Each structure stands twice: as structure tokens, then as C-alpha cells.
């Protein structure tokens, strides 16, 4: 029985050997063959030497979640070969380095030995390049054995090397050598193969961090301050790849943006808050430990009402946790970040398309609401490559919120006065002025201490109370402004699944499998906090509600219970917390078990 375009391959290598180039070449070649793909890098927190596994899933049905098994193994890491071989399902495929002794081959899988050193000698590759080119050896073997077109491999390498021909040729020489050798010397005896389809045409392959960077750029980001931390670093790297170039005046050479590497996350978010106060669109990107450090500043920005955008590309906590694995474990911390009564607007992207879209939305909301907005991405979304339709140009103009010019201040002064925190419109949002505004009454003193609506220091109980009530009112305005949930209801469904972020892919696939088994499940995917009326209505309609998330404590479930106490007993957490993305199999089993 041949299995075409519906399996997963895992490439086991040692970190730091350059295998990422080879893996991405395979991924992109499959994508260019029109086959829906997804790649997931399960990598160590290490520069060189520790094991890394790259999973490539092909799915003619278009599913992109992690698969529960990988049927094809490229065993190129001697340190893990034993466990890698043991993990193969019966009937699987093992492509291994034939130079090793004592490879624990199984007789219920198909084994293909590739004499890696022979090729490297033939190609006269020496020194450092050896490890690197060894990766091209498996590209050639895999291409031959699975049926990946060499032409597409070459296109993928050309993409990867940005058209530098010499590198492409050098790599392709090895790939071809092994490809041809495999054809002549290995008889294909396994069931797995790919065939060209026409399902990826017009699409792009992009990481969530790249998408977020582009989104921020088309959202008008002007200052980025950051401190390197996995898995958010590549987001700022991508901004740095594009933004300074786009903002460079070709005549003067001046650059109308700033990307500043801070000394720590406190300074990173401090600069963002300073720039936001001064009127520029400013953001930072970080992960859990950075969020902890930013807590005090986020509380200040909430209270002094300063726009700020913070991307949290979540990894596994608590503490340093698993720096290179994924989770949704920062939701409660982020929602209430800060001491005292604080609540924040959270955006919850699930796709690279939403990373792009929320890149702009985050700035619009931050400036409209004059408050920090946290965008809760995760490592799986941020660092892995996802297929997507090319991003649409934003349809709406930038929403800069309530900012007064000097003339507008004059108008207000004439009609009774201007106060920075006066709730003129009843939506809890005052009108701000920006430093440099030359009206004599425009200036105010931003502060984290108690103040009157005129921004004057105050310890009066009434002033404090009224200000906090207004901030609560502003949060109610936020409810109406944030992106609504995406709801997909099925007639006769008895189960309602609630989730957010990257569990989308596993849930989509699980619902498909459950439907085939006669189990109907509706689905509500939250795209933001705070929740609005649609969420309550959905929850009201179902008796069995599962809140699926990647953390131990069911954090979103707890938030929903707090927000909807009368419906709290209906909500059941269904949590997965081991650092790996969700699989549809796990979800189907968990749902059917009850």
C-alpha cells in the first residue's frame, strides 16, 4: 500500500551542523511541488552539538498540525540514533549513515544505508564544510527515495542562498551525486512517496516572526527596542532586514526609524514607553522571562496611559523553562501584568496571516486605547515556516487615536479647559497631547502616581477611585474594539471547543477526524482578550465545553471562569504541556476518552 503525500518525516541531526539549510530546502521543494507542508524544528537550547529534530509533514488534505508519528526517519545523529529508530512506527523508513557501526536497525522498518563519507571524499569536501555537506547527502537520498523533484530542490536552494549561484551549484553537485547513486544502488522497498499536486499555488511560506515583522512595518512601527531572547529574536531580525532600508532617504541617507538593542528587557520596554509617550509607534518583542522583567513598566504604561506594543513569543516557563519549546503559558501573567489592579488587551494570533494583521492591529489598539497591547504568539508559530496566502495590504488607514494639535487644545481651552485624563466622550479614553505641542496648556506630567483628570499629583481618595473606575470603563471600550472570536458552529454539535493560537491546526484536523467518527464539535477561537458578547453566547449554547490550551493550569479557562462566573461550571480545561505542539491524535483521543 503506497502512502502518497500523507506522512511525516523527521530529520535527526546534531545542532549547529547547518542542517537547517538542508531541511528548509526539502520543505520548500515539497511546497514548490504543490504539496501542503509544514515544518517544525524541535531544537535544543545550544549552539553546537545537542540533538535537533526537524519534522516535515506532507498532507494532501492540507493539515499542518504536528503528526503523532513520523514515518520516515533521516537518522544522521549518531548520539540519538537508538531512540530515533525505536520511535519509528512499524512499516516506517530509516535512512541512516552507513559509515556508522552498530546502527540498531529494526526488521519491521525499511532501512537504507547511505555511505556519507564516500560522497564527501568524492566531492573533495574538507574541514568545516564536511558536516555541512553531509546534510546535502541526505537531501539527495530523500529526494530520490520519496520522489522530490531535483529541479524544485534547486529552486529551494536558490531561494535559500538568495541567488548566489556558486553556493547553489556546490550544494546541488552533492545532492545530484547522491540522488543518482541512490537511483542506481538502492531499490525502493517502502511505501512512502510524494507526488506533485496543485495545492500551494500562489501561496507563500513564512514564519510567524517574519509575518509579525512585516505586520509591524505596515503598521508604521518606528522604534523597536529589544533584548535578544529565544524565540523572539528572529522577529526583530526580520524587522532589521526590512525597516531601515524602507525608511532610508536615498538622497540624504537619513533613516526615519530606530532599532535599538537594549541592555535588558527593562530598558527595552522603557524605551518603547518613552517613544510611545512622545508619539511614535514603538514595540518590543520578547518571551516569558522578558515579560517578567517588563512587568513594572507595563503597569506604568497602563496607569500613565501610554501606547506600547509587546510581542510575547511564548516559550515554556516557569523560569528559564524550556527556551526552545513552545507553550501558551504566559496568558494569565500577561493579562494581569503588573501590581495593583491591571488588565491588558491581549491579541492571540493563530496563523501567520494573523501575525501580519495583528502587527498593525496592535498599534491601532494601543494608540486608540492609550495602553499597552500584548500580542501572544508562540515558538511554534513564530519560528516555524507556515503556508499562507500572500498578505493583503491593510484596508484601513492607521488609527492614531485621540491626539490633539495645538489648535485643538486652544479650542478646548476656549470651551472650558483641557485635561489629559478627562473622559470627554464617556469611553474612558482621554485626549492626549505630544511633547513639542506648543500650546501653553498642552503640556502634562505623565506619572505613575495618583493624579487628577488634569494630570496633577493627587492623593485624594475620590481622585484615585474615579481614575481607576475610568480605566475600568476604558477596558469595557477595549472589549468592543478588539478582534472578535472566530466561531464555526456545526448543526447538532454537543461539544464546544474553545481555544486560541496555534492549537488551531490540531483542532481543525481533530474536528475532521471526529466528524468522520460521528462526533460533532463546534469551535470558537478567541483572537483577543478581553472577551466580548459573542463568547458568552457561544458558551451558553453548549453543555460540554472544552478549553484547549498548551499549559498546565488551563489559564484561559480560568480567565473565562472569572469573566463569566455564571457559566464557570460548564468550562472544562483540556491542557497539553510538554513543550511540543498539539497533535490531532492526542486531541481526538482526549475527547473520545470522556
Amino acid at each position, binding site marked *: 500500500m503506497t502512502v502518497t503525500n500523507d506522512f511525516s518525516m523527521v530529520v535527526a541531526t546534531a545542532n549547529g551542523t547547518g542542517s537547517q539549510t538542508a531541511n528548509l530546502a526539502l520543505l520548500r521543494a515539497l511546497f514548490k511541488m504543490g504539496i501542503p507542508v509544514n515544518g517544525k524544528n524541535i531544537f535544543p537550547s545550544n549552539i553546537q552539538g545537542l540533538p535537533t529534530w526537524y519534522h516535515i509533514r506532507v498532507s494532501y488534505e492540507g493539515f499542518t498540525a504536528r503528526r503523532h508519528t513520523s514515518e520516515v526517519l533521516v537518522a544522521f545523529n549518531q548520539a540519538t540514533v537508538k531512540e530515533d529508530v525505536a520511535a519509528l512506527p512499524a512499516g516506517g523508513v530509516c535512512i541512516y549513515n552507513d559509515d556508522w557501526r552498530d546502527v540498531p536497525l529494526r526488521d519491521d522498518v525499511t532501512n537504507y544505508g547511505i555511505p556519507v563519507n564516500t560522497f564527501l571524499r568524492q566531492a573533495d569536501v574538507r574541514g568545516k564544510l564536511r558536516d555541512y555537506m553531509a546534510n546535502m547527502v541526505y537531501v539527495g537520498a530523500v529526494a530520490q527515495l520519496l520522489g522530490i523533484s531535483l529541479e524544485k530542490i534547486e529552486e529551494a536552494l536558490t531561494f535559500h542562498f538568495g541567488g548566489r549561484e556558486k553556493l547553489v551549484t556546490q550544494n546541488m553537485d552533492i545532492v545530484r551525486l547522491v540522488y543518482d547513486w541512490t537511483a542506481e544502488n538502492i531499490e525502493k522497498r517502502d511505501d512512502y512517496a510524494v507526488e506533485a499536486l496543485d495545492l500551494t499555488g500562489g501561496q507563500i511560506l513564512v514564519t510567524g516572526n517574519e509575518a509579525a515583522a*512585516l505586520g509591524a512595518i505596515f503598521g508604521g512601527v518606528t522604534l523597536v*527596542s529589544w533584548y535578544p531572547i529565544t524565540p523572539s529574536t528572529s522577529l526583530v531580525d526580520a524587522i532589521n532586514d526590512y525597516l531601515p532600508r524602507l525608511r532610508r532617504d536615498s538622497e*540624504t541617507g537619513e*533613516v526615519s526609524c530606530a532599532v535599538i538593542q537594549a541592555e*535588558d528587557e527593562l530598558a527595552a520596554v522603557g*524605551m518603547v*514607553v518613552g*517613544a510611545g509617550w512622545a508619539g511614535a509607534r514603538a514595540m518590543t518583542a520578547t518571551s516569558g522571562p522578558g515579560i517578567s522583567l517588563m512587568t513594572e513598566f507595563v503597569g506604568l504604561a497602563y496607569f500613565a496611559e501610554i501606547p506600547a506594543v509587546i510581542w510575547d513569543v511564548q516559550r515554556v516557563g516557569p523560569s528559564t523553562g524550556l527556551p526552545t519549546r513552545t507553550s501558551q503559558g504566559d496568558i494569565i501573567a500577561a493579562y494581569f501584568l503588573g501590581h495593583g489592579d491591571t488588565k491588558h488587551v491581549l491579541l492571540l494570533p493563530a496563523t501567520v496571516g494573523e501575525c501580519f494583521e495583528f502587527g498593525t492591529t496592535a498599534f491601532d489598539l494601543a494608540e486608540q486605547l492609550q495602553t499597552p497591547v500584548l500580542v501572544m504568539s508562540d515558538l511554534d508559530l513564530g519560528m516555524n515556516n507556515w503556508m499562507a496566502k500572500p498578505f493583503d495590504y491593510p484596508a484601513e488607514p492607521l488609527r492614531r487615536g485621540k491626539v490633539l494639535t495645538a489648535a485643538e487644545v486652544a479650542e478646548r481651552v476656549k470651551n472650558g479647559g483641557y485635561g489629559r485624563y478627562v473622559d470627554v466622550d464617556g469611553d474612558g479614553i482621554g485626549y492626549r497631547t505630544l511633547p*513639542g505641542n506648543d500650546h501653553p496648556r498642552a503640556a502634562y506630567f505623565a506619572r*505613575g502616581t495618583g493624579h487628577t483628570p488634569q494630570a496633577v499629583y493627587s492623593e485624594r481618595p475620590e481622585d484615585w477611585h474615579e481614575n481607576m473606575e475610568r480605566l475600568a470603563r476604558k477596558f469595557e471600550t477595549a472589549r468592543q474594539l478588539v478582534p472578535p472570536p472566530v466561531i464555526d458552529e456545526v448543526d447538532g454539535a454537543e461539544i464546544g471547543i474553545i481555544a486560541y493560537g496555534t492549537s488551531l491546526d490540531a483542532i481543525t484536523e481533530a474536528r475532521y477526524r471526529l466528524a468522520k467518527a460521528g462526533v460533532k464539535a463546534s469551535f470558537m477561537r478567541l483572537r483577543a482578550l478581553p472577551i466580548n458578547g459573542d463568547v458568552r453566547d457561544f458558551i451558553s449554547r453548549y453543555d460540554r465545553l472544552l478549553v484547549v490550551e498548551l499549559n498546565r493550569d488551563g489559564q484561559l479557562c480560568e480567565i473565562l471562569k472569572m469573566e463569566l462566573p455564571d457559566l464557570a461550571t460548564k468550562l472544562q480545561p483540556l491542557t497539553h504541556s510538554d513543550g511540543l505542539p498539539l497533535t490531532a491524535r492526542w486531541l481526538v483521543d482526549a475527547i473520545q476518552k470522556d
Partner: protein
Amino acid sequence: MTTKANERVNAVGLAYADYKGGASTLCKGCGHDSISSQIISVAYELSIEPHEIVKLSGIGCSSKSPAYFLGRSFGFNALHGRMPSVATGALTANRSLLAIGVSGDGDTASIGLGQFKHMMRRNVRMVYIVENNGVYGLTKGQFSATADYGQELKYAGRNDFPPADLCLEAIIAGCGFVARSFSGDPKQVRELLKAALSHRGTAVLDIISPCVTFNNRDDSTKSYSWGKENQDPLHEIAFVAPGFVPEQEEIVIDDYEPGEMRTVKMHDGSQIQLRKVEHDYDPTDKMGALQRLQMAQDEREFITGLIYYDSSRPSLAEVSNLPAEPLAALPAEKLRPSPETLREMMAAFG
């Protein structure tokens, strides 16, 4: 606008009162209030438009003071020890602003030493005033990191740790304008402040500003009496505003005969005139400055004046190649790239 017809006004038509702030809530006699007064005077004298200035501070007695001067200027009372990062962001977003940061010794030397030094490294254009009294006031008398070694205080007991010297720290971090002064010497504070405002990078003014409530015993190097008796100016300093001197392109320090005057010319055409008092002190000699500061610390000398000056390093805005127009004022069409740009980018991901 708020001035009366018969009031004296400066070159931009504003009266002294237009530069005042709210009533101070600091202790009567606090050195910080004297510094606030000098800031008001200097801004008035130099005819700076209030909206061109931003005031930034951290947390503490000193950091409250920006509410007590320049009421028509925007201000930001940030977090404890974190004013430098807020200032860095704000001044990158709008480089046309003239920034006065006010901090204390706890805010700068204790909780904020990291951000202080990184701001110097980046050379953000700002006057960074440390109102240094060696003690925490609002929490009632604990030692800060600038307190004297071996000093005894009623609340805190004995200080067993050496003081951090913020001028030394500033120079080591790369600051090109480092001065020390005494709040009891308003003239020197004023002249240094004027010069600092002309500097195109971070300018640090470490001003000993006695805490009359918690650290004003005669034996404390942060007390009024000690300051009055021991202040040892390296030179007499006078600031000459641009317009009063011919514009110069290059900044040089003229050689001068002993006993005469040394002139430091600044980028904006202003001059700092340093009249020798008794030592032959060269503020452009980095090693000399470091040595002099260390010696002063060892000998408990209270040297004041312009301790170090070097205008050669570009500011953060210059290094970043920012345009003169504030980034915060960019119009929407400059903020969002074109549909064509997005199409090109998308094609590259295909």
C-alpha cells in the same frame, strides 16, 4: 501669553513666571529646590520655549522636583532607576526636544546604575542632573550608594561600603560632559547647566544637594556646612551663549597661560570659559580627570566644576542617522510602505 504688559520678558516674550512649576512639597531648605530655581532661571535666561523642553525623572525626592519647575513643559515621572530608558525612547522619537533629566543618588547610583551607564554609552542628548544627598528621603533615611564610607546615620547605622562616584562612573561609561557642583553654589550650577544644555550628548551634573532632614550633620560630605567649607572649585566657570561669540566649526580648547582663561568652544557656537583658580586643571584630559576624581575621593576633597569634556563622540540620534524632523511627526504615508512594496515582499516568500 500669560505675561502682563509691564512684566519683564525674555527674547521669546516670556516672563520668569512662565517657567515656574507647581509649589514644592520637599522639605524647607532642601537643596533640590535650589536646583529647581536654577533650572527656571537658566531656561528663562536662555529664552528657551517651554514646549521645546521635556523633563524626565525617576522615583524619589529628586524625581518629584520636575513638577516644581517649567510647568509649561511636558514631563514624565518614570520608574525608579529607569528614567534613562524612557528618555532614550522619547528622545529618539523626537530628537528636537531638549531634555532635562532629574534623578537622585538612590535613583541613579543604587537601583539605576545600569541604565545610567548605558545611557552614557549611547550618548543620548540629555542633561542628566543627579541631586546627590547620599541618603533615601522618602523612606526616611537609609544609605544610598553614594553615602560616605564609615558614615553613621541615626536610622541606618554605619555605612560599611565605599561610595560610588557618579562622575567616575560617567567618564568610564563614555560620557563627554561630566561636572560636579553644589546646590549651595547657584552661580556655578547655573553656568554648568547652561553649558550642559548646549552639549550634544549626555551631560552629567552630579550636584551635591543636602538633605536637611536626614543627612545634614557637619561631618557628612553631603551636608551644607561641609559643602560650604570644603567646596574646592577647579576653576571659575562662565557660559557664553551662541550669538555672543562668533560661530566656530571645530571644537578646540585654547592653550592658555597659567593663571589665565581656558575656553571650551561648543558645537552650537557657545563657549565655556574656565578661569583658573589655583590648580592647572585640564578637563579634556580623561586620565587626568579620572585620577583627580579618585584622589578627591581618597582625600575626601569636594572638587567642583567641569571635570571632563569631550564632544567628539556622536549622539545616539547622530549614530542612528536620524533626520532632523522628529520620528513622532512622520505622516501616515511615510509610516506605511506602499502596496507595491508588500507585493514585492510577498513574491520573495513564494
